[in-house]
């Protein structure tokens, strides 16, 4: 008797979860807001400003999707998630998509049953050293004391890198980024290693950032991207192609400044298809014709979003690097809008 009750409860819960998965596009439209999972705060990527408005690189993806689906870039309910709660929040249906600089890995994609719809930032583990150390390559770091966050993949990458290059190091274990900053500035370690974007953001907070350099070596692949649940391909397509639209828009020279002009129709058929003046791409996606135009208008194309939140003009000052368009030698390569 007891067993059947428990089983019954489990079935109900399973059914409820199943019901949540089907038709996210319709759910979002019916609700009128997009529930988008973001970090509880990461410099440049997602953080509320002094007025409580969410700003950042990941936040822009959420806003673009909301603009494409709902026609309003502000119709987003931002759900802050921690590294520990993010996957359950997505799996349980509390959020429709997760844009929380999450690394695309095999096990997350396959075992946790999520679908990464693309990459919006190619990150990788880097090194920061004081200029005074006179080091220009990570391979010269033999015998260095390295500040490293314990229990992360960065720790394993570091061991692999030093072993492969046959040089030694002395790890200084630290717990959080805040602790690392203090230890590094106090001289408890010669080198600080974590994701390159994090290093740049950390360096930007130093009293004299010019006295520290990021070494050119990037020793791991950390492709960060938005993800959705397995099994709802219509919704996955919407998020994937919204991201692609932002990337393609930059490649095709569509910016938030000239988009109104271009929407009237141009000589470039790919621009016309992207902006919905030609073809029926929007209809295939279950949206209206100018979905992509709205997505780009929300915060600009990929390049504009990058420049505004984490680009070289901001205090974080990240160069495009791997995140440049493929035409400029980067990795950003959107499939064609056809």
């Amino acid at each position, binding site marked *: 008797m007891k067993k059947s009750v428990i089983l019954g*409860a489990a079935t109900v819960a399973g059914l409820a*979860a199943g*019901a949540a998965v089907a038709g996210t596009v319709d759910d979002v439209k019916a609700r009128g807001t997009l529930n988008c999972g973001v970090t*509880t705060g990461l410099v440049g990527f*997602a953080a509320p400003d002094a007025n*409580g408005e969410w700003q950042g690189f990941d936040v822009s993806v959420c806003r673009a999707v909301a603009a494409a689906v709902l026609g309003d870039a502000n119709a987003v309910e931002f759900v802050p998630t921690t590294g*520990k709660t993010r996957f*359950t929040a997505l799996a349980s249906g*509390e959020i429709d998509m997760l844009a929380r600089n999450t690394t695309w890995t095999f096990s997350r994609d396959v075992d946790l049953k999520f679908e990464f719809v693309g990459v919006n930032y190619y990150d990788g583990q880097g090194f920061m050293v004081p200029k005074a150390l006179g080091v220009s390559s990570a391979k010269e770091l033999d015998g260095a004391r390295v500040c490293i966050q314990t229990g992360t993949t960065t720790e394993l990458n570091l061991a692999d890198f030093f072993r492969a290059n046959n040089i030694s190091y002395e790890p200084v274990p630290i717990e959080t980024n*805040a602790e690392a900053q203090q230890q590094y500035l106090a001289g408890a370690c010669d080198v600080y290693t974590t994701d390159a974007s994090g290093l740049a953001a950390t360096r930007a907070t130093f009293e004299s950032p010019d006295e520290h350099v990021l070494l050119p070596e990037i020793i791991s692949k950390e492709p960060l991207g938005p993800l959705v649940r397995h099994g709802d391909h219509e919704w996955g397509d919407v998020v994937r192609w919204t991201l692609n639209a932002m990337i393609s828009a930059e490649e095709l020279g569509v910016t938030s400044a000239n988009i109104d002009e271009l929407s009237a129709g141009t000589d470039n058929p790919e621009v016309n298809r992207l902006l919905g003046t030609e073809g029926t791409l929007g209809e295939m996606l279950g949206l209206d014709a100018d979905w992509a135009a709205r997505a780009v208008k929300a915060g600009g194309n990929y390049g504009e979003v990058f420049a505004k939140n984490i680009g070289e003009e901001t205090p974080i000052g990240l160069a495009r690097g791997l995140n440049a368009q493929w035409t400029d030698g980067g990795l950003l390569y959107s499939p064609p809008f056809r």
Partner: protein
Amino acid sequence: MADQTNNPIAFVADGNIPESPPPARETGVVKWLRENLFSGVANTILTVLSLILIYLLLKNTLPWIFNGVWNANSLAECREILAGKTGACFAVLAERWPQLIYGFKYPVDAYWRPNLAFILMLVAFAPVLFFDLPRKLLLFTAVYPFIAFWLIWGGSILVPLVALIGCVVAGGVFQKFGKNSFAAGFFGAIVVALVIWNIGGALIPESASENAWLSPVPSRDLGGFMLNMMLGVTCVSLSVPLGIALALGRQSNMPLIKWVCVIFIEFIRGVPLITLLFVASVMLAYFFPPDSTVDLFLRVVIMITMFSAAYIAEVIRGGLAALPRGQYEAADSLGLDYPQAMRLIILPQALKISIPGIVNVAVGLFKDTVLVSVISMFDLLGMIRGPILASTEWNGVYWELLGFASLLFFVVCYGISQYSQWLERRLATDHH
């Protein structure tokens, strides 16, 4: 003999010697210093060492505090103004203090609501904490939770009103039937309350909240120190009665009640609070349909209350065990039944013994409320670690923000501690 009388006496005291001040080393500051700070070689060395330590501490902190910059828009600007001098960047507090107190999503034009709720809370607590005050004030205390709910969450006034009516009617039922049979009164009250809440809930129109006088604020918009205060106050006030019930239940002669209480207490005490919070925020979501989840604030309140109730139950059990057996027998011999004996004889004494322990749990619980930041609720610490340190302007400001948080918590916890000491003195009935 004659010689002696004839010889003039060298000196005769014809009055009192005027009082002279005590020797300089036996009075005033000097005496105090000699006795307390320099009473021996070892103590002198310790005193000097301590003075050096204090000097070193102040030498660095005082300029840091007094040079502090209060007007700037970012950390970089602070550093420009300081131009290399040591100094704090208090500008972050000046710019973000509403976020630190209320969270970043609470509507700005509604800040007066939690403020008013806070002031009313002091009024509501007064008769509970200081029992010399007129007992009629307790009526306000009873109504306060509903007022506070309405003020902070806003929305239709009908919701707290229905809840209040349900509670009042249930109380009436208990009064009427509880005299004859405790069980009839108790369960009758619960049934009546549930019926009223369900009927009332169905009667309130869906749109009632939309054009209510106080705009509704969802729970996820609460934050900052306000959230810590709300969690702390709610959970402490709920867990004390629950803890008393559990402690009495654990001593009960009825095996079912006894074992339920024992298992509850031992299980909850055996699990870390952070695990319970994760269950509240993550696991429970799997068991509800996505749209009808129980409010996250409520889930967290339930978990923290259960946690602290288990601890308070053990503290009170200690108080009960400390009472001599004679007290129980005395109550029995007076012909008092169980509720009377507990209410009039046992609990007043047991609770008095338990005060330091209860206060200890309460202070610990209040500080534990910052743990909710790990389940992405933006309490004071969550605000600091998340949004504020993640903003490009303020990334890197640690001491100022965490110092401010410590100060707020210290003020409240020290207040609780002082109150409990006053309470112990006030309740002392033994003679010295």
